[in-house]
């Protein structure tokens, strides 16, 4: 199975409320990523896990949290959603020590109202 699964496909959240998005893969990839994609923009890397080590991008450092309880699962957590968080959130995985491609999930479309 070479798929990355994301749940849910669509998420509605209220301003100020927390949001938790889930991603899983069964390819035994050591690296899992979260990207944010807004309409007509390129996907933007938010953070990634290499094994158990979390790397967050400097400009999103305080806005997003993540956890990776095991190799297969990775979550993205927003503590207090704002309107600007409305976007598609893409999870991806790969083997960092190779030159292989990233495998992307279908994404979770988050709408904050």
């Amino acid at each position, binding site marked *: 199975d070479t798929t*990355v699964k994301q749940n849910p496909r669509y998420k509605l959240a209220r301003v100020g409320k927390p949001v938790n998005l889930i991603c899983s893969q069964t390819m035994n990839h050591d*690296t899992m990523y979260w990207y944010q994609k807004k309409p*007509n*923009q*390129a*996907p933007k*890397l938010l953070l*990634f896990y*290499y094994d158990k080590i979390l*790397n967050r991008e400097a400009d999103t450092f305080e806005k997003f949290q993540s956890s990776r309880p095991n190799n297969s699962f990775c979550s993205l957590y927003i503590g207090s959603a704002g309107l600007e968080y409305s976007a598609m959130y*893409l999870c*991806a995985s*790969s083997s*960092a*020590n*190779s*030159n292989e*491609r*990233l495998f*992307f*999930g*279908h*994404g979770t479309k988050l709408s904050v109202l």
Partner: protein
Amino acid sequence: AQSVTQPDARVTVSEGASLQLRCKYSYSGTPYLFWYVQYPRQGLQLLLKYYSGDPVVQGVNGFEAEFSKSNSSFHLRKASVHWSDSAVYFCVLRYNAGAKLTFGGGTRLTVRP
């Protein structure tokens, strides 16, 4: 710093016509380049990739791309497009020991029947 530029945000062609989508990259190291496609309501899918060797690489659905080190380019081509090729195409650079991707802004391709 690395960057990827897709100068054409939107391209419209007629079915059966040939296609070239342009991509320019900037990176001081060895580039690992990809083209990903996003069809409506689907996740990102890999079309093709280039690591080394023959500068012309073949992908799925009749797509190919040509790497040019002298021009810092990785243009995508197809001899005859089909209406189902309508999608958003992203040129992507992998860097930082394979851990990170830089996306171009994307090109929205519309194929007129």
